[in-house]
């Protein structure tokens, strides 16, 4: 997946992913079922049964899984900060030709 870009910027330079608040999560796994991008991974044998396994698979600016989460356990980075960061990286890329 290394060739994936978002708005011309390498995806792995952009910090955008869900963060699970384990004090709220009830492991209903609705988010896992919902997201088609294999961002989450279920670990049946561990105490923490759900992790964000592939953060860079998450679609930048998508927050859809948080809408399915009853206990409101999923949060995302600040969108404006992310937009700014993408602009900066693009500028840097331009100045480096």
């Amino acid at each position, binding site marked *: 997946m290394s060739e994936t870009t978002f*708005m011309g910027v390498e995806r792995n330079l952009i910090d955008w992913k869900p963060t699970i608040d384990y004090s709220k999560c009830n492991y209903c796994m609705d988010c896992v079922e919902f997201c088609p991008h294999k961002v989450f991974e279920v670990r049946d044998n561990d105490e923490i049964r759900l992790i964000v396994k592939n953060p860079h698979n998450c*679609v*930048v600016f998508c927050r*859809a899984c*948080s809408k399915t989460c009853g*206990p409101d356990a999923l949060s995302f980075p600040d969108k404006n900060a992310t*937009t700014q960061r993408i*602009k900066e990286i*693009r500028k840097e890329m331009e100045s480096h030709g």
Partner: protein
Amino acid sequence: MAEKYVILPCNGLDKCAGLVTRELALKLHERWDSEIICPVFYRVSEAKYNKLAAERPLLVIDGCPTRCASKLAVEKNLKVARRIIVADEAKKHRIGLNDGLRITDLERRFIDDLFEELNKIEETVRPASENEAVSYNFDYETIQNRKFIFRIPKNGEVFFNENDCWAWVNGNRARIGVTDYVQQNLSDILYFYPPEVGDEIDQFGESGSIESSKAVFELVSPFSGKVVAINDKLATNPELINENPYELGWIAELELTDPEGDKELLIGFERYIEITQKKVEDADVK
């Protein structure tokens, strides 16, 4: 019109937000003479409520994003006239509902506020878009795979973001909506939650959402700006988005704040066609 509603609350007992749905429904019942559907009884016996729901517009009140009441409405093939999700409203009102299973004064005040808002909404007619008769002359490029046909408008004034939303720029305004790709993936769209007229939206900010029985899709606005109109027709006919998400199925109209700056982070139809083609191929492989 308000008193004609029939109300379907989730009536959830395991969260405060669920209890709020019940109290709000009771208040509407008392003040508006609305009928209430008991979700538990509805599961075992349909006839009475099916009849009611066929006679009156349906207001669905969900407590949390699990949306049990909405799902029940879908299961029973009911047409929803309006829906509120208490947890989302609480966020808008910057209220933290308590963790317990009892309603406190805070929730009571919140329920009063929600009730007042519902009353107001019923009184004010939403501003209809002035340029209803805008004529579209979109030429479409078609992408086809085994299952679907996607159309993408080939127009220099239509911009896309990589979150499958489009914007058609017309002077200092733009109409926004979702692309065929979203519409096809969701299949039958059942609900439409518009942004509010007057809302200031950032570029890539949430600008409403649509929902099918499969999923919820949150619109990511291509441009920053102020919402000046929404497509009223979608409230009663969300399926227009399935029919044509670029024309009859437009979602909102924005007065643009920084069109030139925003365009730097958007793509034109050629690039969007490439990206969609790739997505369709990737999905085909799976």
